[in-house]
């Protein structure tokens, strides 16, 4: 009975929210962003598969490599990771360039400008801004602006280039057949915005180099990470986790980014204490980033996205959702969240922002409570790279069964947290679909 009431009210809330979300979805800005994110999806998917192969199988300290002792019996093991290194790095590190291309292209397309040239100009503009000027004759680019960390700035750069094309370019009729002369016409029509784009980009790039703004922001990030790693205050741990989750869904690199969660001083202290006392209970720092966030808050990568995948597989009606969830399941099992972030997309999605932040925090609270009640010791022992989320606490407590149980419990709770938001997102998609159908029926073009 009570269950039925809850269903109805949830449905009502969804019905009330759908028009609002739909309005956000239909702004040009959001459309450009969403298409751009989805353009990066195939690259992120391939990159993520290569990355988990490289990390879990072909790195000596990786999860599958460790538990099956691959380095001791697989022939030529030392050399096998090379092709995956380049594939994983280049696909994932190109994501920002692709995003700049996509944002400029889709923006220009809305205003019937030459989208091809706009996109390419966007990509080059990003590289110009990221270019590091030095007296040495080697070309280096600022890593903060490229790669997955530079996603948001790349989209903004792409949109600015798109705006330049809108303001200074001429409208083209793309549907007409293109002869050489017409191509030339179009090229010259785009020459002014292209030149302006590059000049602006060089100016911004030089200014960044001159004021060392990027360097400065990089150092602030490093400082923040240092604080994050050395903190063992429970409030700060939760605060930093929330900040990280918020920044990640906005496409920025948060202070607790996955690859940085190694070798914190509190971890070493805890480990030495546990080894000296032959027990992990009563370690000096029981509530740290490692024992709470990493152990209970990162199943399927940042934001407990493994839970969203399970929620989709169990109850989604949307065809695309099922496809993305299926392809993302294996990377997410080894904590790679990229495919879900860009495929669904979760990135910049206001609907998923709430569970994305809340689910990990709830899980951390459950883990912290269990540690406080001494149901299980804090996780202090090393966990191999790419360990599946529900097993992290189990391995890190030297095989404590309560930790395994809490891992499964956390996953279940996260699925329940994600479910209503997934239904809202699905209802919005459905409404958007109906809307386009209705517009097509009435012959109204936007």
């Amino acid at each position, binding site marked *: 009975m009570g269950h039925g009431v809850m269903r109805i009210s949830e449905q009502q809330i969804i019905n009330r929210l759908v028009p609002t979300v739909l309005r956000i979805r239909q702004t040009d800005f959001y459309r450009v962003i969403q298409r751009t994110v989805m353009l990066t999806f195939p690259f992120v998917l391939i990159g993520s598969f290569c990355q988990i192969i490289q990390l879990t199988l072909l790195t000596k300290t990786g999860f599958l490599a*460790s538990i099956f002792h691959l380095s001791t019996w697989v022939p030529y093991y030392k050399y096998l990771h090379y092709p995956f290194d380049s594939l994983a790095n280049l696909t994932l590190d190109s994501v920002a360039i692709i995003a700049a291309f996509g944002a400029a292209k889709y923006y220009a397309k809305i205003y019937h400008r030459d989208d091809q040239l706009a996109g390419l100009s966007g990509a080059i503009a990003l590289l110009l801004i990221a270019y590091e000027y030095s007296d040495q004759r080697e070309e280096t680019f600022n890593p903060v602006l490229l790669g997955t960390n530079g996603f948001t700035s790349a989209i903004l750069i792409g949109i600015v280039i798109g705006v330049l094309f809108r303001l200074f370019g001429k409208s083209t009729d793309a549907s007409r057949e293109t002869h050489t002369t017409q191509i030339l016409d179009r090229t010259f029509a785009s020459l002014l915005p292209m030149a302006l784009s590059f000049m602006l980009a060089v100016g911004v790039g030089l200014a960044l180099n001159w004021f060392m703004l990027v360097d400065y922001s990089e150092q602030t990030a490093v400082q923040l990470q240092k604080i994050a790693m050395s903190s063992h205050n429970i409030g700060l741990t939760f605060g930093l986790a929330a900040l990280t989750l918020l920044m990640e869904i906005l496409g920025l690199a948060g202070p607790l980014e996955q690859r940085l969660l190694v070798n914190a001083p509190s971890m070493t202290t805890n480990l030495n204490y546990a*080894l000296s006392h032959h027990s992990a209970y009563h370690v000096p720092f029981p509530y740290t980033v490692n024992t709470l966030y990493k152990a209970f808050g990162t199943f399927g990568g940042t934001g407990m996205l493994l839970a969203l995948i399970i929620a989709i*597989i*169990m109850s989604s009606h949307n065809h695309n959702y099922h496809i993305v969830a299926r392809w993302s399941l294996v990377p997410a099992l080894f904590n790679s969240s990229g495919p879900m972030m860009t495929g669904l997309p979760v990135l910049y999605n206001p609907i998923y922002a709430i569970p994305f932040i809340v689910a990990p925090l709830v899980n951390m609270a459950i883990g912290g409570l269990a540690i406080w009640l001494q149901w299980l010791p804090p996780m202090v022992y*090393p966990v*191999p790279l790419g360990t599946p989320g529900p097993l992290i606490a*189990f391995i890190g407590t*030297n*095989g404590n069964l309560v930790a*395994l149980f809490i891992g499964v419990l956390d996953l279940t709770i996260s699925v329940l947290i994600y479910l209503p938001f997934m239904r809202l997102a699905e209802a919005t998609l459905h409404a958007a679909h109906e809307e386009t159908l209705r517009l097509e029926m009435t012959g109204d073009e936007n």
Partner: protein
Amino acid sequence: MKINLWQRRRRNSLWVLVLVAIFLVALIFPAYQWTQANVKSMAGRHDSKLSPVILIPGSSATQNRFDRLVTQLNKADKQRHSLIKLTVKTDGTIKSTGTLRPRDNEPFIVVGFQNNKDGYDNIQKQAKWFSLAFKQLARRYQFNNFKAIGHSNGGLIYTYFFEHYFTRDDITVKKLMTIGSPYNFSEANLSHKTQMLADFIDYRDRIPKQLSVYSVAGTENYDSDGLVPARSVEAGKYVYQGQVKHYTEVTVTGDNAQHSDLPQNEQIVSLIQEYILDSKKKTPTKSLMGAN
């Protein structure tokens, strides 16, 4: 019709989910075994009382270089430390002689090289070879800390090793003593830095911070031990001072202060005994040995 399609789609997805879940469950037991074994080996190393002194001889010297030093130290320390000698061949294979005596927690381990020639290129190679020997020692003896002594180029090999190869966080190096090590080769003028010294300074931030370093110089006259300029030994401060916990410079004179005699110089023997070896009071096992 539409419902059917949805059910089929959901069934396919559920199959994938079930397969992945089975895979995950199958991983639980191997993961359990791995973490148990890993924690056991970490605890073993953590509980280990072994703290060897690892010595590297200088150029043109073999693994037998420190025999007299060890004899003198054993006499002064009134106990028999084990002496283990390793030679690393040019192809990276390792030959070893000597064994660890039972209840000896402070063995001397000498690592020599088949190619023991001078020069920066060779020091880089020897550091690489030393890292292979070190890996084998760490696996065989399961120690969690060690003390380092390098005579002449041996000190330079150690410096290069700490800057480029020593990345283990389960093993700490407590002390390093370099004896007559020419950080600036034969260059006496400190404003002329050799490539090696410049490289050492560039990578100095990789040297372990909790290390105590003693740089011992010998002198026959006021500015050299007959081979290495005192100024070149002194250049070690640009590498270590401010980076490590303590950096101490000691100059010895008198008998056996010539470069090649330094390892058997009586003052250096007592310096090693005082600064490098663990003091007897702190290790209870040794008082047990006295009772036997």
